[in-house]
């Protein structure tokens, strides 16, 4: 994730040539200037944890009974990462897995390791905790050496019991060595967040000696999740707790011109109608009273300062016609323009990706207790310290006066990296002086979660007379994450201004996995700063930006392979340039799928159904993936059924094979849903897909067979597995539809209507210039 901020100068430079085509964005330059001027308090100051990262005690504690507690601000989001991190720690400490207890996401008790996101937890926090554990083991051996009277190199450890090599009777346990005390020793610590390095000089175990890492240890959290004994964010209850609901405005800064309290007078149990700035909420004794009151309360809102676009097509036009404020150049080599202008054959295509939602099954929820200048927040935030900073800023108190206690919510896929609801709860708790639990309703979440941004991608390539691709020119146009590093909903409603246009939507997936002689990959950021932000605000959504970019890349590669009548796997291998990891992954997926070499499309099939296969590969955060999708297309209805997905995955060292497979299965299934079904519906008046009926997602009847090949590279260390495997899914499906029918679809979602339209148009091959 790139978190570089954009300077005022860059911003204004960008706005100078803005083409503002539609009134619904209003005066963009005005909004940019407002943001840059940073009027009001600064938002969400960067703040490191207060615990000293150079103290071993900040990372781990050993109890008398041998239980080891690990303190980490990396949180479990349902991906199994807590179990995997515990495996790495147990391995390094030479204790059995069951002795490890993870104390997670308490800002008073953990070092700030930054947000849990981007498939970077095992890659970055894994080594942080591993090295802390290695430093702990080193210190424990030092203590044992003194107690047993032999040098540390003559000691061995078995499940937390240190003994003398050759004299097993001479032994002492970790618990007895520490004897209920703190270590009180220093470890080296440099850098912050993801880039923090803890005790890198301490030797860690060689992977060849691993006994716990690399095994499918059962997830620690699951049993209680299957019995109702697990405490989700939604299950937090504190004494005297009240229930809050927010009354949502049409746009973020809409003003409540009038609030008619008499409209809810008949509902028993209302404690307070909270109105502060532009924020309106209801606090009640029971959840049902809060829901009824929020629904019934008559609020007249001022006319919105911004309209939403009328449809996806208008957003495409805006993306196409508006100058970017930042061109992120991922690759630029050779001379792409000249090569294309002189080539005998040039291909060009444009791909469309719509706004999509994260779609958490549990709508946002948090509990806040704000009293006497102190706040305690129970939240499912991916970044407990980020939430601490935002809440402190909102309340105007020092971050040290806010304690965030992480409690897991449902899977969030990036949505809770900008967790809005703790702010709603904090505002309402402060207003009533009691703890308040705020639960967003389903329509709040569908409407107001920050969306994965729309993207418009154009690709050109030139082929020489031998049929070799010699130039690749890739341009992604999309929006930044407007909620990143800036004021969230309640903060803005209370007058805190956004500080800028937000973080970029990534650059990967634009064909940089391949090598061409002349190659350019650019991800252009189009300003999406609205004077009065609409519910189309944006954020990181699983494999952010890369899902769309990989869809475009892998579709376009396939289009060229088809036109040149080359087998799609063989065509890709040519441009992987013997790069070992993607080559191995591609071959492994093809082998798993029993791929038969031939060009696409398949020979036309008689009958109402056509079948086809498609391949795609991806590199997300250095994890390599390859997918082969097999589809069945109903030619009369246009319905696409994915029958089977064969998948190869290389994320370096595999810590927990079954946990990894679980993630890959989930990514494939969510990827199919987002490819075939999902798009935010909206018009000028607001979001129209407000529930699961108007925004359906995949269900059991459409779940394919999934066959996974794991490629283990223990010498590399661990890489992420939480999201990379979603990246190749859309391209593999689109290519399989082409293989089955000869119809090339370039706009997501690949709905029956679009498939039918393609079949009727009889498009049989890719367009060529």
């Amino acid at each position, binding site marked *: 994730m790139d978190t570089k901020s954009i300077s005022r100068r860059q911003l204004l430079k960008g706005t100078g040539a803005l083409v503002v085509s539609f009134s619904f964005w209003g005066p963009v330059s005005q909004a940019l200037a407002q943001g840059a001027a940073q009027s009001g308090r600064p938002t969400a100051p960067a703040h490191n944890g207060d615990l000293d990262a150079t103290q071993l005690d900040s990372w781990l504690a050993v109890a008398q009974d041998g239980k080891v507690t690990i303190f980490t601000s990396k949180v479990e*989001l*349902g*991906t*199994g990462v807590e179990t995997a991190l515990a495996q790495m720690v147990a391995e390094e400490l030479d204790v059995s897995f069951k002795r490890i207890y993870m104390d997670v996401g308490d800002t008073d008790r953990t070092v700030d390791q930054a947000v849990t996101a981007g498939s970077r937890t095992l890659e970055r926090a894994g080594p942080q905790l591993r090295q802390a554990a290695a430093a702990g083991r080193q210190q424990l051996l030092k203590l044992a050496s003194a107690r047993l009277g032999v040098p540390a190199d003559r000691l061995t450890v078995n499940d937390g019991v240190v003994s003398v090599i050759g004299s097993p009777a001479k032994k002492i346990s970790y618990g007895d060595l520490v004897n209920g005390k703190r270590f009180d020793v220093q470890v080296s610590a440099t850098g912050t967040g993801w880039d923090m390095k803890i005790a890198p000089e301490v030797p860690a175990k060689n992977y060849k000696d691993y006994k716990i890492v690399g095994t499918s240890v*059962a*997830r620690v*959290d*699951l*049993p*209680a*999740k*299957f*019995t*109702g*004994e*697990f*405490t*989700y964010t*939604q*299950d937090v209850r504190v004494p005297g707790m009240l*229930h809050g609901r927010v009354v949502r405005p049409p746009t973020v800064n809409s003003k409540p011109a009038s609030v008619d309290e008499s409209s809810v007078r008949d509902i*028993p*149990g209302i404690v307070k109608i909270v109105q502060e700035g532009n924020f309106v909420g209801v606090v009640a004794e*029971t*959840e*049902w*009273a809060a*829901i009824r009151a929020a629904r019934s309360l008559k609020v007249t809102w001022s006319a919105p300062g911004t309209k939403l676009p009328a449809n996806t097509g208008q957003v495409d036009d805006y993306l196409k016609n508006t100058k970017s404020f930042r061109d992120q150049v991922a690759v630029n080599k050779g001379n792409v323009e000249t090569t294309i202008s002189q080539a005998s054959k040039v291909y060009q295509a444009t791909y469309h990706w719509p706004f999509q939602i994260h*779609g*958490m*099954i*549990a*709508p946002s929820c948090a509990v806040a207790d704000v009293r006497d200048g102190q706040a305690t927040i129970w939240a499912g935030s991916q970044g407990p310290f980020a939430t601490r900073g935002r809440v402190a800023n909102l309340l105007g108190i020092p971050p040290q006066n806010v304690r965030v206690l992480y409690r*897991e*919510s*449902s*899977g969030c896929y990036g949505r809770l990296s900008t967790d809005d609801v703790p702010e709603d709860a904090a505002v309402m708790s402060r207003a009533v002086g009691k703890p308040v639990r705020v*639960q967003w*309703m*389903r329509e709040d979440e569908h409407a107001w979660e920050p969306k994965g941004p729309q993207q418009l991608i154009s690709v050109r390539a030139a082929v020489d007379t031998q049929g070799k691709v010699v130039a690749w020119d890739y341009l992604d146009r999309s929006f930044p994450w407007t909620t990143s590093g800036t004021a969230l909903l309640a903060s803005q409603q209370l007058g805190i201004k956004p500080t800028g246009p937000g973080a970029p939507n990534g650059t990967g997936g634009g064909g940089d996995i391949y090598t061409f002689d002349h190659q350019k990959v650019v991800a252009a950021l189009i300003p999406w700063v609205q004077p009065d932000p609409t519910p189309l605000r944006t954020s990181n959504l699983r494999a952010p930006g890369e899902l769309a970019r990989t869809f475009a890349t892998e579709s376009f590669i396939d289009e060229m392979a088809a036109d040149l009548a080359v087998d799609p796997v063989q065509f890709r291998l040519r441009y992987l340039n013997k790069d070992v990891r993607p080559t191995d992954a591609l071959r492994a997926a093809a082998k798993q799928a029993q791929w038969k070499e031939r060009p696409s499309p398949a020979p036309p099939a008689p009958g109402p159904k056509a079948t086809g296969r498609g391949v795609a590969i991806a590199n997300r955060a250095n994890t390599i993936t390859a997918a082969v999708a097999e589809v069945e297309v109903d030619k009369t209805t246009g319905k696409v059924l994915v029958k089977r997905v064969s998948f190869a995955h290389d994320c370096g060292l595999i810590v927990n094979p*079954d*946990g990894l497979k*679980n*993630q890959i*299965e*989930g*990514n*494939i*299934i*969510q990827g199919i849903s987002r490819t075939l079904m999902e798009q935010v519906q909206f018009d000028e008046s607001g979001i129209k897909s407000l*529930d*699961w*009926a108007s925004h359906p*997602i*995949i*269900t*059991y*009847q459409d*779940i394919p067979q*999934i066959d996974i090949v794991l490629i283990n590279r223990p010498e590399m260390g661990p890489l992420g597995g939480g999201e990379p495997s979603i990246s190749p899914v859309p391209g593999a499906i689109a290519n399989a539809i082409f293989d089955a029918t000869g119809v090339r679809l370039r706009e997501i979602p690949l709905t029956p209507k679009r498939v039918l339209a393609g079949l009727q148009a009889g498009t049989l091959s890719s367009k060529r210039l």
Partner: protein
Amino acid sequence: MAQISLNVNGKSRVLNTDPSTPLLYVLRDDLELNGPRFGCGLSQCGACTVIMDGKAVRSCSIAVSAAQARNITTLEGLGTVAHPHYLQTAFIEEQAAQCGYCMNGMIMTAKVLLDQNANPSEPEIRRALNANLCRCGSHLRVIRAVQRAAREKVSA
């Protein structure tokens, strides 16, 4: 407000509440049962599923007044981590969840399915669970867990 008597997990409970309150909020907030979960409040996702007189129902959309004199079973009524129900054991064995938030609905719906059909086919399992949404994509593991539970119930 009215006095409401409920029979939940074999115990009778009397409470004073707004009779129009959806059963879900009474189970969660008054009886502190966390198994049934709020997902949509619209009968669309299944996270709030409980068993009422042998049928899997959506507790978010049933007024508590309509749940009186019925036998209600929640996820807690099946088993505990210490003493799990065979369905819960099968879900653990198959590691059949990611975030697990929707799993209350999967397990309670599967319970009713297996009560009515001890040996369901895979298409029957898919059909029975089809109206229960899972965003993490644990569907295949859930299907395997239900199949495992069916096998183990028969052999038990």
